[in-house]
């Protein structure tokens, strides 16, 4: 009696523990779009088949070890085997495997090539942040748009991503929209840009159906801050997407030259960062155009609050281990006045 009570209490504690955790932003079960749901459905098929096999085999196993425990000093019959049984349990699992093999191979080919009307976006992995270069959005004029760490795509629209890396292997993964694919390093063309048609440039098409903000994360060990190489995908209503694109393409402007941050911005920051419509054209770090519209900082590691941004400008290395900006911006590089001014300026870029 008390045992059963214990079991019930235990189970309900477990259930609360599972359900109490606030949200599961990278769940592969609670998904959107054809790719992720297809992958989930295939997993479910295998899971339930495996569950049946599991219960059956472990059940027999447990039955056997209890049923045949040694009681006295009995001597069992020395059975050496039975060919018919062997054939049966060779064929049965093989048949079961065919049941998962067929839909698997169907799905592989189904997902292999993107629908004709797909938008085209290049994803470039960097240690440890993501760069997105919009190449073709059908009716929306997005070509040339570059942004970082927060991707916007329209709902219900297939998007074909070309994945490459600037340095080591990364893997682009937004679990609720679809499985991962590696961003492999490729050589640069003579214009200094990564070769997007290289044989190691990967393709992946995805589609988000329900508008919302989705979490993603690099899935291939890529060095010290691999854990911090996160991203967000905003699946927007098509109108919102078009607005976002046109806003993103509109030029930003520099602060007045009397602004205390002006000098560092146009010299130090300019070496690595670009802001559209200004003299900042660096390509080592994330594009900061319309940075004030971003919800996150440092590849979705932090919320983009004034406090976090100021701390970032004070000591990026202390906030994100190993990051490249910390090589040039160390504690003390910027005065508090400059930090204040630059943070104001960046958050004002809308």
């Amino acid at each position, binding site marked *: 009696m008390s045992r059963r009570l214990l079991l019930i209490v235990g189970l309900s504690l477990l259930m609360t523990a599972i359900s109490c*955790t606030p949200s*599961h*932003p*990278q*769940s*592969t*079960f609670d998904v959107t779009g054809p790719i*992720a749901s*297809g*992958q989930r459905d*295939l*997993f479910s098929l*295998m899971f339930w088949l*495996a569950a049946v096999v599991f219960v059956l*085999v*472990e059940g027999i*196993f447990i039955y*056997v*070890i209890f049923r*045949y*425990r*040694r*009681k006295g000093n*009995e*001597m*069992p*019959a020395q*059975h*050496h085997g039975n060919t018919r*049984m*062997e054939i049966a349990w*060779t064929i049965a*699992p093989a048949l079961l*495997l065919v049941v*998962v*093999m067929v839909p*698997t*191979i169907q799905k*592989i080919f189904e997902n292999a090539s993107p629908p004709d009307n797909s938008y085209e976006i290049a994803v470039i992995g960097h*240690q440890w942040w993501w760069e997105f270069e919009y190449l073709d959005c059908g009716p929306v004029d997005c070509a040339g748009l570059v942004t970082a760490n927060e991707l916007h795509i329209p709902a219900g629209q297939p998007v074909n991503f070309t994945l490459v890396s600037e*340095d*080591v*292997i990364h893997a682009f993964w937004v679990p609720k929209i679809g*499985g*991962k694919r*590696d961003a*492999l*390093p*490729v*050589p640069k063309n003579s214009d200094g840009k990564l070769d997007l048609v290289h044989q*190691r440039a*990967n393709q992946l098409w995805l589609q988000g159906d329900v508008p919302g903000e989705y979490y993603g994360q690099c*899935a291939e*060990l890529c060095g*010290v801050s*691999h*854990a*911090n190489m996160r991203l967000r995908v905003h699946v927007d209503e098509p109108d919102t997407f078009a607005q976002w694109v046109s806003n993103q393409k509109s030029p930003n402007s520099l602060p007045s030259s009397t602004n205390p941050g002006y000098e560092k911005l146009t010299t130090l920051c300019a070496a690595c960062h670009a802001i559209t419509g200004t003299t900042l054209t660096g390509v080592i770090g994330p594009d900061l155009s319309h940075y004030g519209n971003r919800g996150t900082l440092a590849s979705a590691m932090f919320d983009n609050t004034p406090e976090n941004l100021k701390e970032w400008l004070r000591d990026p290395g202390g906030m994100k*281990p*190993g990051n490249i900006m910390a090589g040039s911006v160390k504690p003390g590089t910027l005065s508090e006045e400059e930090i204040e001014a630059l943070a104001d300026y960046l958050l004002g870029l809308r």
Partner: protein
Amino acid sequence: MATVAHTAGEPRSYSGIWSWITTVDHKQIGTLYLFTALIFFFIAGTEILIVRSQLARPDHGLISADLYNQLMTMHGISMIFLGVMPLSVAFFNWIVPLQIGARDVAFPRLNALSYWVFLFGGILLNLGWFTGGAADAGWFAYANLTSTTYSPGDGVTFFALGLLVLGVSSLAGALNFTVTIINMRAPGMSLMRLPLFTWMAFVTGILLVFAMPVITIGLVEIFFDRYLGANFFNVAAGGDVILWQHVFWVFGHPEVYILILPAMGIVSEILPTFSRKPLYGYSFVVFSGIVIGFMGWTVWSHHMFSTGMGAVADSAFTVTTMLIAVPTGVKIFNWIATLWGGSIDFKTPMYFALGFIALFIIGGLSGVSHASPPSDLQQQDTYYIVAHFHYVLFGGAIFGIFAGIYYWYPKLLGRHLKEGLGKAHFWFMFIGMNLAFGPMHWVGMDGMPRRVYTYPTEMGWDFWNLVATVGAFTMAISFLFFIYNVIVTARSKEKALGDPWDARTIEWSIPSPVPHYNFAEIPTIKARDDWWVTKYGPEEHPTNESAVSDPGNEDEGDHHDIHMPDPSYFPLVSALGLALMMGGLVFPPFLQMFGLDIPIISVVGGVILLIGTYGWAFEPVNG
């Protein structure tokens, strides 16, 4: 120096520590392997306890990201190359000659060399800890993270050099045991009478012989890239990072079977003994082992579904990978059928063997779900995979190995490990293992990638990570029971019998501990499970009256007439030379000559190696 008893015409023999240093006896070498590998195993375990402590809470700052990467990398490498593999080799050494009715392996000094090279290779692999940071690119060390640009410390260099050295050990060992099994079998021991463990050792040996050269090539490429500025994996210069992945997994997947087949062999010995029945479907279990060995070469790219190989390659590797589940299933069914109708005695080795089956089933089933690329793309590089391979490698290999330790300990070391402590060990390990790795299935499917040193609390992974950490420490406690057991047992005076488990194979027909010449008389084998047939006859329904008495634990007099190989310290000298030669490539001092930097330590090592092999070749052979 310790005592040397050597008169002309009589074999040299040493005692004390010197006897261990110069030993060429397969049993002593097995014991050296066992305890050395256990020490490495506990080091690797400690590494991961630190990692699990870090991951117990979200946003935890216990260790740095950098240290995390080193600990996680070294945990994996050490568990595989310094833990599970040499633990299996310990059993090859202990058991194979005994099961085939031989007095030693084919090449006893080469066997000693394997051990010493393993020991020094293991140390070399860990040297990074003392020179500013161990390897940090994960155990499969994906290029180009292993280049000097992205991993500038010496850790990855020691990884490459250490594994190259360990490869020498594995290759020598594998050849030695393959030759031993082919050539040294007692009269009547036909292949289809070989005990299952020896069969699996045979298949493993062949896999190793073919797999080690592959990884050697890859490691040499890494090393050339790092040391000589070659461009195998330098994309800007036309190198290819995917090349490494193919080379690595062409080795790496057979490696998985190198890790698991010996444990399967162990379990296939223990189940029949403790259920008093012959192994069900002997030939099917043997052939499924061989088939797994072959098919293990056809599935490597299932580790690479995310690299974009294309639909055709993905489909092909799906089919091969799913098919390999079939022979694995055959083994499991035959094990269960062995238990069926048996008379099961629940001794500690049996606990671990049954634990193996229970857990391996789970690992096998989860494996099917990532044989399917669309599903795998959500699982690859997540904790789901970590869960899967710990169910097969910890739940499988490690449970099998501990089953073997408890089973053969009395035979080789002459003492019984205590049953009570052994069962406590089992339960803590079994519960701890499920607490640690079970929840990882869930957090993996909930989107937690592996190899992250931290995670934010909003991801919803806190609770199960904490549980996993509790599980890891529960397993750690289980090993304290084991260590205590070994110590208590070593102090106790109780001696083991020759055949304490009422076993079936011929290693139990001789006294415990095994005399140094193994068999006073080379046995003639008349049946599969020869010792059982000697005891109870070949009938299907025997009575439980044994026809012979227990072989006991006394060495029956000295058999001076039995010729045994002489001890030798040249294997140790050669191994030391080899390790110095390789390790010295990294260490100063360098001598500037002919415009080259000549590494002095390497040169010294080379000379020692030369002396070692020269002395070896010309060592007078007694007899």
